């Protein structure tokens, strides 16, 4: 690569293509800041004044902070529990693959990836509501458990690349299997933990279908569900609607802008495994 000239035609083509990605963002931000009167004019024009009132109206109408709190609560707990528990299960399986039971567990979790959610959807709704789990705690349990299937895949490949000598040395020093996992293996899993945390965080924050069917109480609705529920009330007040969308998207966009390099490499790592 060194000494090669910059490929300008490709650069320009990619910049034009990136406009397709950016246009919806531009539209969302400008419309969220416009007044209804401005909507009659050129839709692509910049707002004349910044109408921050759209945001305060949206916050009040959708009870934004409540929904934000619900989404944040679910996402934080799901990420923490997923990383702690899924890595542990994967470790037990990865180190015992020569035993029938663990081999069975591996294929059991992996083959579950082929089962489409709709086949579970109708029974799980009855089950969770009968067991009093039609709330955020129930949602957290379901996410953590369902994540097992995919995360098994990513973790086990990585754990097998860790030399067993490290564990044997720790056991020689008197550590138990339990201690070996938390003190030796779990820290070594850091890159995979980061990947799993990123994917889990995005999955839990953006998911729509599971909270829609599981959580019946409106006060417990997460951000995507709130956008759906208020769709008819936004009606043609697009300034209000877009202000609400923007606030729902903003947390992940901010996280992305701050940790972009990290997120992309994390997802790449997960996908190569």
């Amino acid at each position, binding site marked *: 690569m060194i000494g*090669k000239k910059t490929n300008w035609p490709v650069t320009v083509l990619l910049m034009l293509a990136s406009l397709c990605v950016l246009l*919806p963002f531009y*539209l969302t931000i400008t419309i969220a800041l416009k007044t209804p009167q401005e909507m009659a004019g050129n839709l692509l024009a910049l707002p004349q004044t910044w109408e921050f009132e759209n945001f305060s109206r949206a916050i009040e109408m959708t009870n934004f902070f409540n929904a934000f709190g619900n989404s944040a609560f679910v996402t934080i707990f799901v990420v923490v529990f997923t990383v702690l528990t899924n890595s542990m299960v994967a470790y037990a399986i990865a180190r015992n693959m020569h035993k029938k039971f663990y081999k069975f567990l591996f294929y059991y979790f992996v083959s579950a990836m082929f089962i489409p959610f709709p086949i579970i959807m*109708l029974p799980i709704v009855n089950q969770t509501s009968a067991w009093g789990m039609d709330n955020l705690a129930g949602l957290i349990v379901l996410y953590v458990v369902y994540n097992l299937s995919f995360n098994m895949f990513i973790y086990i490949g990585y754990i097998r690349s860790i030399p067993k000598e490290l564990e044997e040395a720790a056991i020689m020093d008197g550590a138990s*299997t339990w201690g070996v996992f938390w003190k030796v293996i779990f820290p070594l899993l850091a890159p995979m933990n980061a990947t799993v945390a990123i994917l889990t965080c995005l999955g839990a924050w953006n998911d729509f279908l599971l909270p829609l069917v599981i959580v019946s109480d409106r006060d417990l609705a997460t951000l995507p569900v709130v956008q759906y529920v208020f769709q008819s009330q936004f009606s043609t007040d697009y300034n209000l609607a877009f202000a609400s969308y923007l606030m729902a998207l903003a947390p992940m966009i901010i*996280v992305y802008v701050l940790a972009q390099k990290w997120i992309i490499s994390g997802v790449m790592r997960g*996908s190569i495994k």
Partner: protein
Amino acid sequence: MTDKAMKAKVRTARLPLQNKRASLSKESNVFLFMAVPGFILFFIFHTYPALQGIFYSFTDWKGYGDWSFVGIKNYLNVFKDARALDAYIFTFQFAVLSTIIVNIISMLIALGLNAKIKFQKTLRAIFFLPFILSILIVGFIFNFIFSHLLPTLGQNLGIELLSKNILGDPDLAWIGIVVVAVWQAVAFNTILYLAGLVTITEDLYEAASIDGAGRWTQFWKITFPLIAPFFTINMVLAMKGFLMVFDQIVALTGGGPGTSTESISLLIYRGGFEGGQFAYQSANAVIYFVVIVIISIIQLKVLERREAGN
């Protein structure tokens, strides 16, 4: 080192065999303790409901009240149901078309990003951005683009095709859903391809160009065979994701106009929760499951053979 650990070590030295056996069984208990709760929970919340779904598909349960066994009647009815058939046809056409478009576009973008370009990091960050967003909300934003921005643009420019809301036309609404699905999915697939492309060393291309191979030959003879495993993964993952399409449709058309853009997931959701067709839609879901497994297996077989052939 603690006294206890020291003693343990001394004992290990003295009685190697006996102690090893004892610690092995203790070790395997710990492993069981780590794995079994996860297994039980997964069974309770994933396998058990799936089995229930299969069980009720042979009954006439509405989701509440009494029920009785009806044999395979639900399955026969699904095959005769025009609405279900339409949903299957729509979902497959949508999934195949979107998978192809996504893979072509993301391959092109990944090739571009892998070339010697300016602003590489920024461009990569922009193309990956859609991956982090809620599909539902993206769908709502595109809904506005299709229903307001494009028609106004079309009217101003005098383009007839653009001057109406495509989402309101039963023959065109699917285009809108494909656009949103592709817009979002390209992000992840590009990253996957890029991960494959960066593993190819520059030497290979230099050798090829010395041998007089053109860009086109280079792509088909070097690049494509080397990223074939990524192509396989991308095709299978994209297809599987698109067969489950739900959020995009809810945000754009709600399955309409009429039922022209109703996917299988949406049909099961609606019939099961709103139509009192718990048992019937469970049968539909079982068929859906079988179809997804068959497609995944065929795809893997065909694409793996391709890879081997190359």
